[in-house]
């Protein structure tokens, strides 16, 4: 004072490692083992193909409305790669790539889109939460999950995801504020894919970046090319390591693009141009990664690629089979509300059973009921 610049110690950065042509910044290259690179590639490609399959099955009426993730494979996958098995992964609904990496089964995943609670059940031993629907609300329980690690004195970390649209919700704000206050081991990843259904990013917030929202919480923020798997891994690794060491949360803004419709229920032509979509094609995370592996690293030969593809397709087919042979328990709804159903739920279940098993009453015409006046 009297009048001066207000200094803010938060670190705000931007980062990318792998460019759209598959060329890598040598200084920043995380230098992953070949094996890991190929595994990552497999998962990324599998995500792409499963996504396509789901779209197809939606059109055939074999699953319900589907929310595709095409073009957004690199960010969740890269983040998942930096997590340990006992860490926690809290997705929104476009983080399939990371789910597959974490061990989610395709058959179960499809159950979710097929309208079954069991799609939310999560495999035993996988520390993840199911797809989250109310936008940004998952940030809050993710923060609780992260906090639990700290309160227990464990060094596990929680990575949570939301979209650019999610940053407008109060939940996003409150969760990050809590995370910063308690230095919870949380990595908050915003997949900024340019759109929240029909609302473009620049009408979602007047902030010049999402990463800078970190300043509000006194934490660091970083903006990355979300279609660059290596860049994602570098940024996420640092954030995860920092969180694991007790350094508190980091906000990661991953710039990416939703190549397909929001969900199969909408028509993106109503609100965005073909050119915009076209312009993003060269930045595709999968082709970029493929170029890097084939041309720069030279570990992805045609033969390897073939093998991977066969394996991927078999696994997807198997998943679809499992999904489609799933048998619905119509009464499960009564058994999962509480550990022990309440008397009222038991009564309602009996009511439903009677109806489903015995159908309508006999049609013996009813004799004229006594009229009200006869009674009163």
């Amino acid at each position, binding site marked *: 004072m009297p009048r001066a610049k207000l200094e803010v110690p938060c670190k705000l950065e931007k980062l990318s490692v792998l460019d759209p042509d598959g060329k890598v910044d040598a200084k920043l290259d995380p230098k992953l083992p070949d094996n890991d690179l190929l595994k990552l590639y497999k998962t990324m490609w599998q995500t792409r193909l499963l996504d396509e399959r789901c779209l197809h099955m939606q059109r055939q009426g074999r699953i*319900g*409305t589907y929310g595709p993730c095409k073009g957004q494979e690199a960010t969740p996958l890269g983040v998942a790669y930096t997590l340990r098995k006992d860490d926690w992964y809290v997705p929104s609904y476009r983080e399939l790539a990371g789910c597959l990496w974490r061990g989610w089964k395709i058959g179960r995943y499809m159950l*979710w889109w*097929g*309208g*079954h*609670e069991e*799609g939310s059940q999560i495999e035993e031993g996988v520390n993840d939460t199911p797809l989250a*629907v*109310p*936008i*940004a609300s998952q940030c809050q329980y993710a923060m609780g999950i992260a906090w639990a690690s700290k309160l227990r004195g464990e060094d596990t970390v929680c990575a949570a995801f939301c979209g650019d*649209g*999610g940053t*407008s*919700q*109060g939940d996003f704000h409150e969760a990050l504020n809590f995370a910063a206050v308690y230095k919870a081991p949380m990595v908050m990843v915003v997949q900024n894919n340019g759109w*929240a*259904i*029909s*609302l473009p990013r620049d*009408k*979602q*917030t007047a902030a010049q970046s999402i990463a800078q929202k970190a300043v509000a919480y006194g934490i660091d923020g970083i903006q990355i090319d979300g279609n660059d798997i290596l860049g994602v891994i570098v940024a996420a690794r640092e954030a995860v390591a920092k969180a694991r060491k007790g350094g508190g949360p980091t906000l990661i803004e991953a710039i990416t693009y939703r190549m397909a419709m929001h969900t199969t*229920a*909408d028509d993106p032509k*109503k*609100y965005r141009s073909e050119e915009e979509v076209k312009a993003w094609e060269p930045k595709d995370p999968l082709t970029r990664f493929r170029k890097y592996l084939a041309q720069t690293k030279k570990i992805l030969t045609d033969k390897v690629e073939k093998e991977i593809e066969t394996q991927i397709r078999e696994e997807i087919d198997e998943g679809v089979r499992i999904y489609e042979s799933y048998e*619905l328990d*119509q009464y*499960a*709804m*009564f058994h999962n*509300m509480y550990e022990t159903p*309440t008397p*009222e*739920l038991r009564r*309602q*279940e009996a009511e*439903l059973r009677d*109806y*489903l098993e015995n*159908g*309508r*009453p006999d*049609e013996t*015409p*009813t004799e004229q*009921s*006594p*009229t*009200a006046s006869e*009674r*009163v």
Partner: protein
Amino acid sequence: MPQMTMVEALNKALFELMAEDKNVLVMGEDVGQDEGVFRVTARLLKEFGPDRCIDTPLAEAAIVGTAVGLAIRGFRPVCEMQFDGFSYQAFHHTEGHMRRFRNRTRGRYTVPMVLRMPYGGGIRAIEHHSEAPEATYAHLGGLKVVMPSGPRNARALLRAAILDPDPVVFMEPKAAYRAFREEVPDEPETLPIGKGQVAREGKDVTLITYAAMVRPTLEAAEELEDDYGIDAEVLDLLSVSPMDTDLINASIRKTGRAVVVHEAPRHCGVGGEIIARIVEDSLMYLEAPIKRVTGYDTIIPFFANERTWMPDVGKVVKAAVETVRF
């Protein structure tokens, strides 16, 4: 009179009111460029521009909260919640300000706004997209909770809601959005908020319902007549707050029997209120216990099983026959 779906009829009401009164604004997520996820706000952005048909950032509390401020300033905002399940994000503003400002300021500020939301199941949507929260809103004094059942009354009631000097929660049965068409008159039409209608006359039993459940209940009434020789009266409440107690009691005094049908869970649902009002005013006319055909006290299942959960024609028939045979 053109044949319209409910979506078209609602759109017509919005279009007309926006043309008539510059203070009417439409706001919400994806209501402009995208014309609403159900297309209820079609053509509004094009016709009235981005200051009257407003695409908002993704924050329901802010939609309702800022609409309260706009209403205090004399606008008549019509807010869209994209789905019932997300109206909860705004609940503290609906409860805390939207319904309170008139009373709190003794009329100095009023909030003539409408909170529109699609409600209910039956369209195979994902979790949080199929809730029926009418009892939750009806419990809050200061609000009116309007629940149309068909294209024509939807249009007339939305018009009434926008013209109403007080805040209205307007719950649109998404299962009925495009399920059938009705003739909708060209000229503006309103219906009084708080008045129900006899949707079918009958003398043996009164089936009391509203919104999405009116159609299956009417179907049940046909079946009751054809297969069981039971002549059911069907009441379409159209509004659950205020509730048309007189209509209900008049029918009960005629039939002596009733079944209440709604989609929301049973416990502390609107059905209990209806029964309480019958007991208060017409107990001595009752010939049989009143059954409730409702959603169960669970979370509505993910869509593969939602039909099992929802009231349907057969459940209504069964309850009505049992009530008559009691």
